[in-house]
C-alpha cells in the first residue's frame, strides 16, 4: 500500500472520528444525561444478543443496495433508482410469496423475480440515456416515485388484504427465509448479501465486462477510443445494479421482519447505498464493512433514543458529516501533499544512490 492509498484509508477513519466527536458535542449540549447517551450509542449494540442481531439484520439491505450502487457508480452511471428498485423488488417478491407455497422453490422464485424487476426498473433511465441522451441522474431520481405509487396502487387494489389496513395478504410460511440464530431475526439473507458483495467484486475487478465498466467509468473517451461499446456498458451496469438492489428488496420482504407487504413509503435504503458506496470507495468487497458501521451506528442510536432523552436524528447529523468529510477532496490536502512530497523525495534519493 503506498502513501496515497494509506492516506485515503486514514482520511475515512478520521472523518468518522470527527463526525462522532461533533455528535458528542451536540449530545452534551442537548442532553441531561450525556454520558449515559454516549455510552448507549457506542456500546449499546453489544449489550445483548438481540441488539447484536439487530445490527446484522439491518446490515443486509444496506449491503445489497450498496453493492448495486457500487456497480453503477464504477461505470460512472449516477443512477439513483436503487431506491425504487428495492421497493419494486420487495413488492414483486411479496406478490410471488403470497401465491406460492412450495418449499425452497417459492423463495427462490420470489427473489429471482425481485431481481429481474429491479433490473428492468433501473434500466429505464439507462435506455432513456441511450436513446434520448436524457441525464440518468435526473430521470432515475424521478422514477423512484413511480415505484412508490405503483406499490401503493398494488397494495390498494391487487394484493391488499381487506381484513388488514394498508397491508397485503400474508406471505406463505414456505417462502420466508430461515432464521439463522435463535433469539434474533438474523436470517439467511446475510449469507446471500455477503455472497453478492463478493460476486460484485469479482465481477468488477476480475471479469472482462467489469474491466470495461471501470474503464468507461474512469474515462469514457478513453474507453471509446479503445474500442469499448459505451452503450453496452451503460446498459449492463444499470441492469446489474438494479438486479442487486431489487434482489435486496426481495430478501428484505422475505425476512422475518415482515409478514405482509406494508411499504407505503420509500424506505431510504437506496440513499443509504450512496453512503455505503462512498465509504467503500466503489468496491463491493468493502460494502459489508461499511454496512456494519452504519447498522451499528443506527442500532446504537435507537437504543440511545429509547433509554435516554437524545433523539434518533443525532445520527442523521453524524452520517451527514461523515459523507461531507469523505467526499471533500481538499480535506487534509495539506497533509496529503506532505505525504506525497515525502515519498517523491525518498524516490529521488534512491535514484541518486543507484
Amino acid at each position, binding site marked *: 500500500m503506498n502513501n496515497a492509498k494509506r492516506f485515503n484509508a486514514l482520511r475515512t477513519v478520521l472523518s468518522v472520528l470527527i463526525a462522532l466527536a461533533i455528535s458528542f458535542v451536540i449530545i452534551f449540549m442537548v442532553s441531561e444525561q450525556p454520558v449515559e447517551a454516549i455510552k448507549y450509542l457506542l456500546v449499546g449494540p453489544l449489550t445483548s444478543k438481540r441488539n447484536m442481531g439487530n445490527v446484522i439484520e439491518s446490515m443486509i439491505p444496506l449491503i445489497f443496495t450498496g453493492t448495486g450502487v457500487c456497480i453503477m457508480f464504477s461505470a460512472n452511471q449516477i443512477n439513483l433508482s436503487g431506491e425504487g428498485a428495492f421497493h419494486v423488488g420487495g413488492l414483486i417478491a411479496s406478490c410471488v410469496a403470497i401465491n406460492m407455497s412450495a418449499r425452497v422453490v417459492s423463495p427462490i422464485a420470489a427473489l429471482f423475480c425481485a431481481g429481474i424487476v429491479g433490473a428492468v426498473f433501473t434500466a429505464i433511465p439507462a435506455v432513456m440515456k441511450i436513446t434520448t441522451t436524457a441525464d440518468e441522474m435526473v430521470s432515475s431520481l424521478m422514477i423512484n416515485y413511480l415505484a412508490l405509487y405503483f406499490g401503493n396502487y398494488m397494495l390498494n387494489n391487487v394484493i391488499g388484504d381487506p381484513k388488514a389496513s394498508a397491508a397485503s395478504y400474508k406471505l406463505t410460511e414456505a417462502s420466508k427465509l430461515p432464521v439463522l440464530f435463535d433469539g434474533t431475526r438474523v436470517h439467511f439473507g446475510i449469507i446471500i448479501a455477503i455472497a453478492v458483495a463478493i460476486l460484485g467484486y469479482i465481477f468488477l475487478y476480475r471479469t472482462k465486462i467489469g474491466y470495461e465498466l471501470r474503464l468507461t467509468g474512469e474515462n469514457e473517451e*478513453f474507453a471509446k477510443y*479503445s474500442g469499448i461499446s459505451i452503450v453496452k456498458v451503460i446498459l449492463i451496469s444499470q441492469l446489474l445494479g438494479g438486479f442487486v438492489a431489487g434482489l435486496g428488496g426481495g430478501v428484505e420482504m422475505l425476512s422475518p421482519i415482515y409478514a405482509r407487504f406494508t411499504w407505503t413509503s420509500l424506505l431510504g435504503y437506496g440513499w443509504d447505498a450512496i453512503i455505503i458506496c462512498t465509504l467503500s470507495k466503489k468496491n463491493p468487497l468493502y460494502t459489508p464493512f461499511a454496512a456494519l458501521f452504519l447498522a451499528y451506528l443506527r442500532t446504537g442510536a435507537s437504543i440511545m433514543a429509547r433509554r435516554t432523552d437524545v433523539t434518533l436524528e443525532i445520527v442523521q447529523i453524524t452520517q451527514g458529516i461523515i459523507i461531507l468529510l469523505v467526499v471533500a477532496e481538499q480535506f487534509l490536502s495539506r497533509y496529503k501533499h506532505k505525504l506525497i512530497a515525502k515519498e517523491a523525495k525518498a524516490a529521488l534519493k534512491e535514484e541518486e544512490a543507484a
Partner: protein
Amino acid sequence: MENQAVLQMNHIMKIYGNGVVANEDVSLELRKGEIHALLGENGAGKSTLMKVLFGIESPDQGELILNGAPVTIKSPQDAISKGIGMVHQHFMLVPSLSVAENIILGVAPRRGIFIDMDKAVESAQNIAKEYNFDINVKDKVEEIPVGIKQKVEILKALYRGAEILILDEPTAVLTPQETDELFIQLMKLREKGHTIIFISHKLDEIKKICDRATIMRSGRSMGTYEVADITTQEMSKLMVGREVSLTFEKNDQQLTEQVLLKVRNLTVNNSQGVLKVDDLSFDIKGGEILGIAGVEGNGQTELIDALTGLNKKYKGIIEIKGKDIAHSSISDIRSMNLSHIPEDRMTSGCAKNLSIQENLFSNQYKKHRYSGKLMLKRKAIEKRSDELIQEFLIKCRSRKQNVGMLSGGNIQKVIVAREFSTCPDIIIANQPTRGIDVGAAAFIRQRLLEFRDAGCAVILVSADLTEIFSLSDRLAVMYKGKFAGFFNDAAHVTEDELGQHMLGIKRDEVLEGVLYE
C-alpha cells in the same frame, strides 16, 4: 545599481499532487534591469518555477528573496502587489472590452460606486505613452491583432506596478515583424530599469536580446551564463544533456505490394458543420511513413478521427487492407491491426486513476492470451505488464501505480507500449512526442522506424517539423482540409518550402504520387 540582485530563488523544490517532481533543485538570480532568459525543454520545469514566483504554486522547499528580504508569495494578487507581473502564453484578456477597460480591470479608478471611464481611458493612455506603446486604448480587444494583444498584456502588468516582468514564450504566437517590435519594446523597458524574465527555447532569440540565461534541465538549474560568453551549441547541449542527433539512421525502404490504407474523396464536417477535411485522397503501403505536416486546426484531427473510427459521419471511402470501414466499429477497426496514438494523451489516451497495468490492456484484453469467455487471465496480464514496463523503459514503482502519478513522458510510453504491443500493421501516430522529454521522444521515434522497416504503414501527424523531416518517407502538408503540397521524397524538401505550403502561400493543384494507381 548594476549587478544588484532584485530577486533570488534559492534551491526551489516543487512536487505536484500526483507526485511528479517538477522542480527538484532550481536556483535563479535576477539583477536589476536585465533581460534574463529562462531556457529549457518542454517539461524541464520552467513554467512551474514561474508559477512559484507568481504565487500560483507554493514551493515545497527553498526560499525567495526579493530586494534583499525573504518573502513568501501566496497568490498572484500578492505577487502583483510585490511588483511582479506575468504575461501568460495564452492571453488573459476580456475580448468584448476595450483596451483601456482591460488595462484597468480590477484596479479601476472609481467615482462613487461607478467606474470613472474618462479617467480610466486617460490613465491607460498615459501609461501607453510613458512606455512608447503605440496603441489606441479605445479599441475593442477582440478586434486587435495578436501582437497588440500582447502589448496590452504587458501594459496591464506595468499599470499594476510590475518591476519584474515574466514573459512566458512571448514570441510563440508572433510573426517575425511583431517579434522584432516586441524586442524593441523590451529593450526600452530594460532602459527604464525593469527586469524581465524571458522564457523561450528559441536560442537565436535569446542571443539577440538577453543579457544572461539560466538553463534548466529536468527540474534542475544547470547554471547561469552571460549570453555573450556562450554559444548556441553549448546552450543546447546544456539544455538537452547530451548531443541529441535529430536525424535517424534510416534503412532502405521496402514497400509491401498491398495498399494497406486507401482513402478516396474523404470529406468531414465537424460537429458545428464546418468543413474540416475537403475531398482528400491518398494511399499508403506497408513499409513507409507518411508524414502529415501543417498548422494545427487544418483538419488533421478530423482526418485521424475518421480513419480510426472515432467519427463515422464522413463522406467518401476509407479502406483498410481492401475492406471498406464505413460500417466498422472502433473495435472492428482495431482488430484489423490498426494502432492509434491519440493527440491528447490525457483525454483519450489513458485513465489516470487506473493502474499502469489496467491502462496497458484496454485494446487487447479480449485476446485469447489475456482472457477467457468471461474472466481476465490475471497471471498472463501481470506478466505481460512487467515485460512491457521493462521493454518500453517506463519509469514507475510497480505496474499497480496509477498512470496519473507518472510524468508526461512516461504516460506517453504507457500509451505507446499498449499501441505497439499488438503487432500493428497500420500505426496512426498523432503528435506522438508532444511535450515529452528528448529521451522518450527519441525512443518513440526509433520504434516508429523499426515498425516501418518491419512492413508497417505509419501515418505521422506532427507539429514538430524536425520530427516530420527525420522520419517521413512521403510528406503531405495539410492546409484548410486539403493537401496543399505533397512530396514523394521527404528528404528533398526544404523547411522554407514546407512553410510556404503550411501557410497556404503555395498550393499545388496536382499532387503527384499521392495515389498508388
